């Protein structure tokens, strides 16, 4: 599904990703953890094709295609979805209208007809139930005046509507209350179908209690420095990042 080989990227002369290697197979859930500023969002942005970042080396293959050659919109149309850490607001454009446009752009890329209104509404209803999102939120301007939690839930709703092959969730759990966290996690779990893959970026083990990952990676200073099973997340929760730094031979302040 996704093969990242020695990926390096920088922004404004600053080297941020310093050789990332990661393989995600269909149906797998990978979690990425790591201290603030280690490069997690950068990795997500580079995969989604944000032009501020310059890829200085490495390769990424997605569904047998050279991902780095594709425009951001084509990456999306190929089935890559990013739930943003900070979703943007688009005044005057309702979420419903936005998603409808997105759904139909993706269908067009696949050579399909636009979805008819009845089918679209049916799908909306179904997915609204899945993430327990309210109709009234969807008729408002996209993310405008949404609470932090509402924005995150809206990201997951869009993911459910677009049915991607690979979903990258960038700290979707931060800002969610306990109930919302459970709802979002259950939503993700319902979308796990053995083929769809997830890359979940989080700071908290708690999310991984709900979305149980196949692999956990620690990103530190632009490199994946440790990988393991779901128990690695527990260990990090208990011990913090210091033990990783120690393993790396870095001095740790008391």
């Amino acid at each position: 599904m996704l093969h990242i080989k020695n990926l390096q990227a920088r922004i404004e002369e600053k080297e941020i990703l310093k050789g990332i290697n990661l393989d995600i197979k269909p149906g797998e859930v990978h979690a990425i953890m790591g201290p603030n500023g280690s490069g997690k969002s950068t990795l997500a942005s580079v995969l989604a094709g944000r032009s501020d970042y310059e890829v200085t080396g490495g390769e990424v293959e997605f569904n047998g295609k050279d991902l780095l050659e594709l425009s951001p919109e084509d990456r999306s149309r190929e089935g890559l979805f990013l739930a943003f850490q900070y979703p943007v607001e688009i005044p005057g454009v309702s979420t419903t209208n936005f998603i409808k446009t997105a759904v139909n752009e993706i269908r067009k890329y696949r050579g399909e007809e636009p979805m008819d209104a009845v089918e679209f509404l049916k799908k909306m209803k179904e997915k609204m139930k899945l993430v327990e999102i309210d109709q009234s939120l969807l008729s408002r301007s996209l993310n405008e005046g949404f609470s932090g939690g509402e924005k995150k839930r809206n990201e997951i709703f869009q993911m459910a509507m677009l049915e991607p092959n690979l979903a990258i969730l960038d700290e979707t759990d931060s800002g969610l209350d306990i109930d919302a966290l459970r709802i979002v996690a259950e939503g993700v779990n319902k979308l796990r179908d053995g083929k769809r893959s997830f890359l979940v970026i989080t700071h908290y083990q708690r999310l991984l209690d709900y979305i149980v990952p196949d692999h956990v990676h620690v990103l530190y200073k632009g490199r994946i420095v440790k990988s393991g099973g779901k128990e690695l997340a527990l260990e990090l929760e208990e011990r913090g990042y210091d033990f990783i730094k120690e393993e790396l031979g870095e001095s740790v302040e008391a």
Partner: protein
Amino acid sequence: MSEMLTTLEQTALSEYKYGWVTNIEADEAPPGLNEDIVRFISAKKNEPEWMLEWRLKAFRQWQKMEVPRWPNVTYPDVDFQAIKYYSAPKQKKTLNSLDEVDPELRATFEKLGISLDEQKRLSGVAVDAVIDSVSVATTFKKQLGEMGIIFCSMSEAIKEHPELVQKWLGSVVPVTDNFYSALNSAVFSDGSFCYIPKGVKCPMELSTYFRINAAGTGQFERTLIVAEEGSYVSYLEGCTAPQRDENQLHAAVVEIVALDNAEVKYSTVQNWFPGDKEGKGGVFNFVTKRGICAGVNSKISWTQVETGSAVTWKYPSVILKGDNSVGEFYSVAVTNNRQQADTGTKMLHIGKNTRSRIVSKGISAGYSHNSYRGLVQVGKNAVNARNFSQCDSLLLGDKCGAHTFPYIEVKNSTAQVEHEATTSKIGEDQIFYCNQRGLDTETAVALIINGFAKEVMNQLPMEFAVEAQKLLAISLEGSVG
């Protein structure tokens, strides 16, 4: 929405879509302007003596006036002696029915998406089509006539309803109001006239389409709308012009009168040729539009979507004379490439408890300049006058400019005048977010600007809203990325 996007797809280049020339033998005046030309126009139209006198008076006044220099636009001086002031599409005889309209002319309107065919009519829209200054067809006349509504060309109104024309023409925009209104008064060759009798709610949208066709001609239409006590009408105006290298002049005058409890809604989708990327050609659009809420509880509402013209100079205004009257101005002005627009409104509060609302959305791209200029004036007897103004500017790129010139003059202490203004840029973040959901950048920009302009677009009648959305998208193609 999805319809808009497919149009975007189809129009690969941001070229002016309506830029063809209809080949109809024109019946025209030689270039230049003097009293003889004024007489020629009047004679061509078989006008009564009083009309000729009115025109000549206007012409003499105009000769003493100066071109206004205060708008925030720059353009080469117009050579008023190089323009042809009359050009009528040549038609063999007077038409008895719409079936007799020149097929080529008919095709022109088909291309514009306007059906002159009463059988295949737009759903409930009566159309008066004005090509180069002359009205060629008015649809639905009979049905409207049965309700006492008069909807016809100005020339016809002068002949058939002289008492109404004499009473109201120039009553809202006096001949000497400004340089271009004086010029228009001297040389206008046609336009639409609309009269809604007491208590009648016009059951359909009345619509006029203006098109400049002949080269080197000016277009000077004159529109007059009178809404008697307790009546209602919604009026639409659409404009296009062919693509030409030289500039074309358009100087129209629109007057609206709303008597007691009457309401007039006037919507414009202006799409004159804006000139090419380098700013060559394009229409100079110098228009005077004004309405008077003469009666109590009356209401006049202007809605405009301005995407065309090389230079626009236009301030649809409302004189709020009747107590409790309401004036509204909703505007979206888009400028791209080298276009310049100086547009806004004037709300003149005279009566008690008068209210006005201004919503202006300026979108600038390329090297264009977009200015909002608005005056809110509260007279000393205008007790409890209220105004709310919202002026938002959206910039695409960093070579364009947006300017806001709000003028507020208040002479009554009970007035409440509120002004809000914002300027924003389409953010990389917004575009990337849309890209990430499968929208290409053109589509993303179209979506974002339509969202920005939504409050105004919502004011347009349905038939126009879709067209206006497409226009916004088309006029900004290629301006980002």
